[in-house]
Every structure is written in structure tokens, then in C-alpha cells.
């Protein structure tokens, strides 16, 4: 079994699924000849040819609109949007068409498509290369939103997305693309979309997080020295409310951590559901450690914006002291 980083795990999942399913095609800006600006699709055009892995003109709405047509026509396209900040131009095609085609046509047309998008901050990039828009798409019925936090999860979740008959936004946390390696089986395995993972068990408090923030949460748990249960959501929609409920009913306290801005971030939805389901078991209000309600600053102040282990530790302590 090899030790792979996130980029390698994703690349491997793409290769294996493309070998099994000849209807999977990759498209996007710079993904073919160049192998993607993060090299995630490295070597794929050479291996599978230009008909299956091709570079497109510079137009996100065009990339997604074309992909929707490919999917309606029976293929499983995997378009890449180069950075999450460029989802904007594609928003209409995603939300007015990809999300609606099945219900609009009562299943006569469907859109089996996996959109790959590097997401999140921490790589000292220019503006619109460091954002976290997952809540926008979780709020759009008809889509699925996935965000792995590790190479092992990334491969299993991507394989599931590539086999899903509905449109999936597969967010890849870019600051951990090469941050660490772990054992990733070469053999086929899937991880179900919609199921969370308990990273570590505990009794005092539950942390819910996803994406690269899971790393900060693990660091915070160690620093705090408390018995904390960490749940990595893995899928933002549909999300595993049952796992969260079971954990919070056990611990009575919860801190949600995400990079996206606080107001109307997905933590708000989680908080509401916990309040609904665990009202009598809660010992303290649900706490959210999130990005501030500001635009992501340019990189000189980036680390002041992003939730770090220190802020998470403080939230843990305040929550436990309530």
C-alpha cells in the first residue's frame, strides 16, 4: 500500500474510474496538456487521449454548460473549475440547470456530473483563490456537496461521486494538497456520500468540521487536553445529522469549525439542527468558529482571518466553562 498525498489520491481515483468507465471525460482550463495548475490531472491526457481529457476555452459558464450537455447526453463529465472564486460565472448553469434538470423533467434528463474545485485559504494566493462557498451550493436543492479532509477519504469519496447519478460539487482543500501523506489502498473502495467520519472519540464535547479545518481541530484537541469527539462531516449536503445527533446527545456540547464566513455558513444549519434534536441534552449553546463576516483578506492578513487551533481551543474552553 502506498503513502499518497491528496493530489496523488485524487489522481489515482480518476485513473482507476476512467479505466472502468469509458464515459468519464475530463475538461477544464489547463487540465490537459498542463495537467492542471495543481497537477491533479497530471499525465491523464497522455494516458487517455485528447478525446477524454481536453482543455477548454477560458469560460467557466461554458465549461459547466457544455458539461451539463455531455451529461444529459449520457457521459459522466468531470469539469474542473480552477479555483472556487471562479464558480461565480458558472453559478447560473449549476443552479438553474444542473440542480434542476432531473426535477424539471421528472427524470427524463439527468446530470451525472462531478465538478472538481480547489477550495479554501492558506496558500498565500491572490484574491478569489482562497474562499469557501460550500454553503451556497448546500442551499441549492438538487446538488450534492462533498469536501474530503484526507487522501484516504478523497479517493473513496471521489469514486462515489464518479458513480453518482446526480451532480456533485467535489471540493478539494488546496492548502492540504501536499501537506501530508497517508496509506491509501490501491484496491477499489468507496466511501458513501452523506456519511460523516468520527476522527476520534470523546466524552466532554463534540467538534464538527470539514475540509482543511479538520487539521486545525485535531491540533486544538491535543492542545486542550480534553476528551473531545471530532466529527469530519465529509459531505456538506446531504449531511449526516444522525452522527452529529448521537455525538452531541452523548457529550452535551458542540463547537462547529469552518473557514467560510459565520453568517449563513453551514455551521448555522448544523447549529439549528442540533438545537432541534438535542435541546434537552445541551449543556451549552452550540459554538461556531468560522471565518469573519468579511471578504477573505489578501494574504498578508490571511492567517488573521482563518480559524486556527488557538481560536478553536478558546471556543472549546468557553463552551466547557458555560
Amino acid at each position, binding site marked *: 500500500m502506498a503513502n499518497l498525498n491528496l493530489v496523488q489520491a485524487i489522481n489515482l481515483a480518476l485513473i482507476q474510474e476512467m479505466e472502468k468507465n469509458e464515459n468519464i471525460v475530463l475538461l477544464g482550463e489547463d487540465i490537459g496538456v498542463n495537467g492542471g495548475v495543481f497537477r491533479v490531472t497530471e499525465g491523464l491526457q497522455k494516458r487517455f487521449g485528447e478525446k477524454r481529457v481536453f482543455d477548454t*476555452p477560458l469560460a467557466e459558464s461554458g465549461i459547466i454548460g457544455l458539461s451539463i450537455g*455531455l451529461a444529459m*447526453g449520457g457521459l459522466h463529465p468531470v469539469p474542473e473549475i480552477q479555483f472556487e472564486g471562479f464558480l461565480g460565472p458558472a453559478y*447560473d448553469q449549476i443552479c*438553474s440547470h444542473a440542480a434542476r434538470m432531473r*426535477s424539471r423533467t421528472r427524470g427524463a434528463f439527468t446530470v451525472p456530473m462531478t465538478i472538481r474545485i480547489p477550495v479554501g485559504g492558506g496558500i498565500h494566493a491572490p484574491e478569489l483563490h482562497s474562499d469557501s462557498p460550500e454553503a451556497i451550493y448546500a442551499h441549492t436543492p438538487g446538488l450534492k456537496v462533498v469536501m474530503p479532509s484526507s487522501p484516504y477519504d478523497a479517493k473513496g469519496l471521489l469514486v462515489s461521486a464518479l458513480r*453518482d447519478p446526480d451532480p456533485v460539487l467535489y471540493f478539494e482543500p488546496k492548502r492540504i494538497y501536499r501537506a501530508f501523506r497517508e496509506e491509501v489502498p490501491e484496491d477499489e473502495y468507496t466511501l458513501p456520500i452523506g456519511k460523516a467520519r468520527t476522527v476520534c472519540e470523546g466524552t466532554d464535547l463534540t467538534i464538527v468540521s470539514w475540509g482543511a479545518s479538520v487539521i486545525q481541530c485535531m491540533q486544538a484537541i491535543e492542545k486542550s487536553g480534553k476528551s473531545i469527539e471530532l466529527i469530519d462531516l465529509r459531505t456538506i449536503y446531504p449531511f449526516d445529522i444522525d452522527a452529529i445527533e448521537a455525538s452531541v446527545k452523548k457529550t452535551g456540547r458542540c463547537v462547529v469549525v469552518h473557514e467560510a464566513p459565520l453568517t449563513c455558513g453551514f455551521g448555522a444549519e448544523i447549529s439549528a439542527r442540533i438545537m432541534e434534536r438535542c435541546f434537552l441534552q445541551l449543556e451549552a449553546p452550540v459554538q461556531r468558529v468560522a471565518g469573519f463576516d468579511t471578504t477573505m483578506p489578501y494574504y498578508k492578513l490571511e492567517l488573521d482571518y482563518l480559524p486556527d487551533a488557538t481560536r478553536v481551543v478558546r471556543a472549546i474552553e468557553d463552551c466547557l466553562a458555560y
Partner: protein
Amino acid sequence: MPITTAYETKIERISILDEKGNFDEKLGKGLIPDADLVKLYEAMSSCRQLDQVAFRLQRSGRMGTYPQNMGQEATSLGAAYVLRKDDWMVTCYRENCGLFWRGVPKEAILLHWMGDERGNAMPKPHWVTPIYVPLGTQMLHAAGLTMAARYQGKAGGGEDRIACTFFGDGASSEGDFHEACNFASNLKIPVVFVCQNNFWAISTPSKINSAAPTFAQRGIAYGMPCMQCDGNDLFATVYTMKKSVEYTRQTGLPCFVEMVTYRLGDHTTADDATRYRDKAEVDAWKARDPIIRLRNYMVARKLWDDSKEAALAEKIEKENADAVARAEGIAAPHRADFFDSMYADIPTDLAAQRDTMHTHSLGQDPSQLPPEAQERARQMSAEAQAAHH
């Protein structure tokens, strides 16, 4: 250095049967066999009558907002007549005539405007996409659909399938129109782009949607051959489509057609065009009506007469009334439909919303209520479920 010419082109305009009845023998002779001509005339007449029926349905509360196709029958019909049955036809909403020629049931279109998604469940044998509201977004789908067909080769129905996509003068301002042209030409996708220039985008005259002298020339920027034709002349639309479809099918490359026509009705039944355009203009275009023009030609050639016209009117009235009856006779949709059609497999959470018809948690999970209230909650959920069936 002498100044050289970087690029030069011209755009041909096709007119074969004009509004005065002049017929260009060279271009038009043998173009449409007489038997087909009669069927095409019947199709246009039927579409026009259904349009008027739809208008009355809306006014009497039996249908929602409806966009009349009146005056534009020859555009999509010319295309549908020329295209192969399995070429994709990706339309906007003023292409009913072409869709009906392709075999799309009339009640499907009526159901869409009656607020029922089942009207959009277009069966594959017709190779058309459903009507959608966002303008100018469908041409990208046309490109993807035909690219997929070509990719699949034989399995996709043959390597020479093409797509034909329709949009208006207004929609050609949208960004996605330009992206679609760019993608089709750069990725070499066989799409015939057809712009129905009907002079009005609701109250916006076409000169606000393009400052250029033609819409046809929009294709030049993308390296496409472009043609313009009189969209109220069925011979011209057929001729133009024949040339375009042949080109695209043989080369695998896109091309661009502007069909110049006119929106005789209001934008939709919710619009009042008298607020923004002159009666004189509308009257001038009534004199260019594609159906009257064709009828006069057929009468002059002894292919048609008053008694045939009367018989047709009776036949059409009955056929269209039957279509309305089928649309109105459909069983009411199930409340569960809008939940069940969101995903292939409904998420548990959404199933709970469907099964209780509540979003508030106490209504979804009666076990959170005090015992005395639980029975009532369970009963109400059972009633909600029963209402699905």
C-alpha cells in the same frame, strides 16, 4: 508598408418566395416536393390555431402565462423538416411548429405552460430538450449533447449526428450565447446555431440587442460561416437549413443562421405590446405572414383551394381540442413528485420532509412532543401521507 486586408467576408441573404408571391425558380424549384408542401402548410396552420387556443385557455384561467408563437411558424418548421429525426433540436420557446413536426405531443407543450413538469418529460425518440426559462443558456447544452453523441460513436446513434439550437435576438446578448459559439467553434462541435430575429425581446427592439447591421454576423467572430434568410418564407428557411445542415454534418463544424421574422403576438399573455410598438409596424408584418404567403402560392399552383382550407380548419380544430382534453384530463400530480424527483435516491432528511409535509422539527419527530400530543402528530402525518396517493 502597404495596408493589406486582414479579413473580409460577406453574408448572403436568402429569399425565395416573397410576400408579393414572387418565386425564385432557380433556388426554389424542386426544393420541397408538393406532397410535403401540403403537409408543411397543414403543420403551420395547426400550430397557429393551437396558439390561439392556448391564448384563450390562459385568458379563461385554464393555463398559466403563455408565449404565442404566432408569425414564426416557418422558422423552426423549416429546420425540423431538414434535420434528421435523431439530430438534437435544442429550442427556446417559440419553436412549437418544429417540435410538433418532430412528433412532440401537443399536450406536452400545453402541460408545461399549465404548470406541470410532466410536460417536460420529453421521451428520447424525439431528441429534443425541454423548454427552459433562463435565456441563452441552452446552446451550451446543445454543444454538449452532440459532442456526447459523437463521442459515443455508433452507440450514440452514429458519428454524423448534429445539433440545431434556437435562440432569439435578445438571447444572443447573453454571455452564454457567446461562450457556446466559442466552445463549438474551438472544440469543433457540429451545432447549427439559429437566431430567430423577431425584432422584439419583450419591449426591447432588436437594435438594442445588437448594434451591428445583422445578427448573422455574430457568428463571424467565431469563425463560422453565416447566412441570413427571410424567416417568413418556408422555402428560404428550408434552403438555408439544407445548406447549413449539410455543411455542419460533413465538416463537423458549427455554422450560424439568422432567420428574420416577426413576433406577431405579445411577448406572452402577460404582456401588452401596444404599449411599446406601432400598429403600423405590426400591420406591415401581418402582410408578410408565412402561412398566408404559402397558401397564396399553393392556390396559384392549384395545390390548394377553399374547400381544402375549410376541411383543414375542421380537422385542426378537432385535433387541437383533443390535445387540450388530453392535457386537462391528466390525473393530478402527486404531492410526493417534487420530492422524489430531486435525486436518484432521496436523502433521508428530505424523505422526512416528504412524509410529514413539515419542516419544523416537532412536526417531523413526534417523539419530541409530550405523550398526549404524539398521537395527534402521528395522525396528521398519516393524513399528509395519504394525500400523496
